[in-house]
């Protein structure tokens, strides 16, 4: 059984006592006395026989449970009434809607139990970041609650529908709070799913959770709301820290953005393209530094084409690659494959027959490069030429992730006709292909 995260004998004993988190316990063994408030147990450690209590000095300790302990409940947790903060908003400011997909933009800590709870009401947001009330007139709601890594193409359909609704309602911008792991995929997906956008769609997240004073959440959120309210472009972008410090944020075009670091605040980078804008939230300044593809305009009617095919896979090339992986996908009825090839866009010659078969069976195969930086070119080497002959669609400088999203969208919303798919995949629709990669678009070490 499991009880408050505890398992086994500890769980049994605690449940028999009927104690809850926050109740005060006295644990006595061999004359040693431990007194404190019962804490929940993190499930990962639930099998270990310890009872976690918070001492009066605020520290938690784990007291070993041997079965010999006398446990006395000396007090029950009192009811706490939480009064929601009252905040006035200025309706003359740009109206922005914040859609949350899960995760915690704002957290409240329960110091008694250590629990961190999300808080998403507008008053709570403004109470925590009062500056917001000077930038926008905010509306906020949670549309789904999933971990970033659990996002599926089905969620993109829902997210795009909600954004579309907000656009039709005439908001000045939409901010989507999203976990950072899969954020770039979602931002790319929305770029395709809603076109002729009247206002920006800004994805925002945090790399340091909002329960810590050093969270990047507040800074990112300020920058994202500012972008949604004022940016001259109407594209699907990611707004996150531009460097490790809290100085500026960058707006990356969703289709060109990639999470390039596991933990840094400035994890997102634009690949093969410049960021769209630099944002200084404190100065309320947005400097556009790249060509805008879609401009903000209230007059535009958004177009929603939001079906995504969830039978698409990414396959990475590596030494010893087994061609039967491709066969398997075809046999299992997958609708499209994105290859993450080596170098200019290669996989082993041994796989060419399998690829040929896939194409023959109507499964488009798109070639991208695991180099990430640079463009595929299948004419330079003979392997590339043989891949082209087998029917591979070159992915140009698209990121493998973007190519995956785009293929899923084409198959779901546009066509499954191979020639049409190839034509759309090689056409630049929302900035996913950069026809001119300049020398500057590559990170270098400072000398």
């Amino acid at each position, binding site marked *: 059984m499991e009880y408050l995260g505890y398992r086994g004998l500890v769980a049994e004993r605690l449940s028999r006592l009927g104690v809850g988190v926050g109740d005060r316990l006295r644990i006595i063994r061999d004359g040693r006395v431990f007194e404190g408030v019962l804490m929940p147990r993190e499930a990962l450690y639930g099998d270990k026989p310890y009872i976690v209590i918070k001492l009066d000095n*605020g520290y938690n*300790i784990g007291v070993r449970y041997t079965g010999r302990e006398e446990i006395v409940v000396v007090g029950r947790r009192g009811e706490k009434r939480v009064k929601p903060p009252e905040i006035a908003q200025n309706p003359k400011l740009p109206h922005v809607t914040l859609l949350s997909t899960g995760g915690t933009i704002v957290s409240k800590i329960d110091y008694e139990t250590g629990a961190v709870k999300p808080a998403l009401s507008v008053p709570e947001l403004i*109470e925590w970041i009062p500056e917001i009330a000077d930038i926008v007139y905010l509306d906020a709601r949670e549309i789904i609650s999933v971990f970033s890594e659990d996002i599926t193409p089905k969620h993109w359909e829902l997210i795009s529908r909600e954004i579309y609704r907000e656009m039709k309602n005439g908001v000045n911008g939409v901010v989507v709070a999203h976990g950072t792991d899969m954020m770039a995929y979602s931002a790319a997906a929305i770029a395709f799913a809603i076109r002729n956008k009247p206002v920006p769609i800004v994805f925002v997240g945090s790399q340091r959770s909002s329960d*810590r004073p050093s969270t990047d959440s507040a800074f990112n959120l300020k920058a994202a709301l500012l972008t949604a309210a004022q940016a001259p472009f109407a594209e699907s972008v990611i707004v996150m820290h531009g460097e490790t410090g809290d100085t500026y944020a960058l707006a990356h075009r969703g289709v060109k953005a990639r999470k390039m670091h596991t*933990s840094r605040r400035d994890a997102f980078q634009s690949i093969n393209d410049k960021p769209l804008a630099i944002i200084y939230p404190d100065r309320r300044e947005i400097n556009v530094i790249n060509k805008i593809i879609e401009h903000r305009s209230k007059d535009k009617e958004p177009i929603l084409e939001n079906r995504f095919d969830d039978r698409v896979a990414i396959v990475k090339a590596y030494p010893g690659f087994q061609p039967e992986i491709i066969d398997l996908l075809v046999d299992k009825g997958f609708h499209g494959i994105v290859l993450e090839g080596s170098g200019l866009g290669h996989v082993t010659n041994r796989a060419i027959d399998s690829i040929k078969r896939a194409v023959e069976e109507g499964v488009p195969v798109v070639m991208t490069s695991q180099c990430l930086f640079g463009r595929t070119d299948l004419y330079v080497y003979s392997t590339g030429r043989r891949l082209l002959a087998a029917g591979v669609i070159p992915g140009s400088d698209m990121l493998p992730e973007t190519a995956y999203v785009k293929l899923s969208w084409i198959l779901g919303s546009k066509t499954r006709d191979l020639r049409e798919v190839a034509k759309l995949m090689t056409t630049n629709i929302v900035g996913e292909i950069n026809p001119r990669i300049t020398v500057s678009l590559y990170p270098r070490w400072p000398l």
Partner: protein
Amino acid sequence: MKLDYEELGLKVGLEIHVQLDTRHKLFCNCPTTLVKEDEEDVFIRELRPARSELGEVDPAAILEWRKRKKYEYYAPRSASCLVEADEEPPHELNREALTIALAIAKALNMDIVEEIHVMRKIVIDGSNTTGFQRTAIIALNGYLTVGGKRIGIQTLCLEEDAARKLGEDRDKIKYRLDRLGIPLVEIATAPDIHTPEEAGKVAFRIGQLVRLTGRAKRGLGTIRQDLNVSIRGGAKTEIKGVQHLYLIPLVVEYEVMRQKKLLEIRDELLRRGLKPEDVSGEIYDVSEVFKGTKSKIIRRALSRRDHGVYAIVLKGFKGILGVEVQPGRRFGSELADYARVWGGVGGLFHTDELPGYGISGEEVGKLYEYLGADPGRDAIVLVADHRDKAYEALKAVIGRVREAFKGVPEETRASQIDGTTRYMRPRPGSARMYPETDIPPVEVTGELLREAEKYVPEPPDVLMNRFIEEYGLSRSLAEAVLNDIRVDLFERLVETYRGRVQPSIIASTITNTLKMIRGEGAPIENIRDEHIEETIKLLAEGLIAKEAIPEILKYLAENPDSGAREAAEKLGLTTISLEELDRIIEEVIRENMDAIKRKPNKAFKIVMGRVMGKVRGRIDGRTVAERVKDKINNLLKT
């Protein structure tokens, strides 16, 4: 002022922080060394207090946040990584540090926690990039015997040290990240200490005990002491950052004095029939009064936009602000601290110190008149600064004045070098700890406890025995070493130079020699353990004579950046060969031949004195005497 501490009900608790000398930091693989110069990355951050579920925020945290300061971090590449920069989650708890902490817990007779949980303690003055300090309780409920009395040890925590503050300007505070993450043990005593001297003794004992693990860091800033002081009717005051052991008794004494004075002020206010609600919250703009003022501070303030002179009237408070609460600090200074901390202003003026500071008696008169206050009864407080800052400052002053009716407010105060303290911030509330979920809890296994065994320091009586029996120290010298913070250094040096330097020489260098040169005015607080170690090494290698030790240490006290070898060379104290000694003796004899011939029976004394003048500290005196005797005997024979 002689104080009767028993009658005053003095209670002191100590929190002693000692840095541990581990191979790497508590939560990452960076070394635990401070850097002088290095390539650094610089970045700016802000901190924002997290809300508690009940909407409460820690008062200390709110204070920091209201200052709206930014923090500029200098990240030296050799001593900090992404973890210190708060750009990578912490690694697991450093096992080496944990083992040392467990050893100390054993030596302090403590109950060791069975499963250790790392917590986050909110600290948002920027000294931690995360906005919290990671800390874990390792053991509880121990004791230490000092002077035959049992002093309770409440907790032993293992925690990360904070970043080093480099400086501060108008809108940002600068920190270097090399110190951030160095393991610290924090040992908190029960409030069982009842006199200032006892506080000093207990602090010394704890510091020594930690050093005896052989794994404490040495040198300035590696031990820091916080004090909790209260007297009956007063309040628990937390005094942060007492840097020197010798200051502890003085800091306690001054704090007792302050609390006693504040209680006297309270009684005086009640005697005058005043009540907190009589303290008006009204703030007045009195810039007009100072139009033609000679006061530079006020003139400068008046010349700037949105600046002015602002005042509050404290009815019936005349004379109170001038009461001295600590040497050189008046009640007005206490108010000025609040104005500085909460309003960010430079300070304040009050009528108990006016006329003065360029403010004339006439202006003071006009001021009373302008505010309709009674010069014979009332006090006025002035702040000349930006309007908003002045308001914040004066609001804080009003709040503090109202507290005066209760006596002693609960405060966190900062220790100053002269033993006095100044207000730093309100005492943090209890709502400031929550679990560090990035770090798994640690089970204290039998294996861990066995590992800890090797660091457990020996009790003093065992040490005493060894010093006498094994090292051949006299009882008094052994006692002196045992009562010295450097007892661990002594042991280490004896171990290292066994057979080459007598333990008694090492012992008296650490104790008597340092005391002696301090008597001669040398600033011995500059002497680091490395200085002593290098000097003993020179002796062991025969490069100096033991007589040279005081001169070398004196030089090092004055020039702490140089090494012992350099000092010996600069002072000409490196040993000389026997040939050279002979040459010097012969030269001295030649020069003094007349005198020797006149008084042959004084010959030895004459020559010896002059030779020693030339070679003192460079060769053993006994050798010199032998050679001089030989030469003179030869001479007199011929």
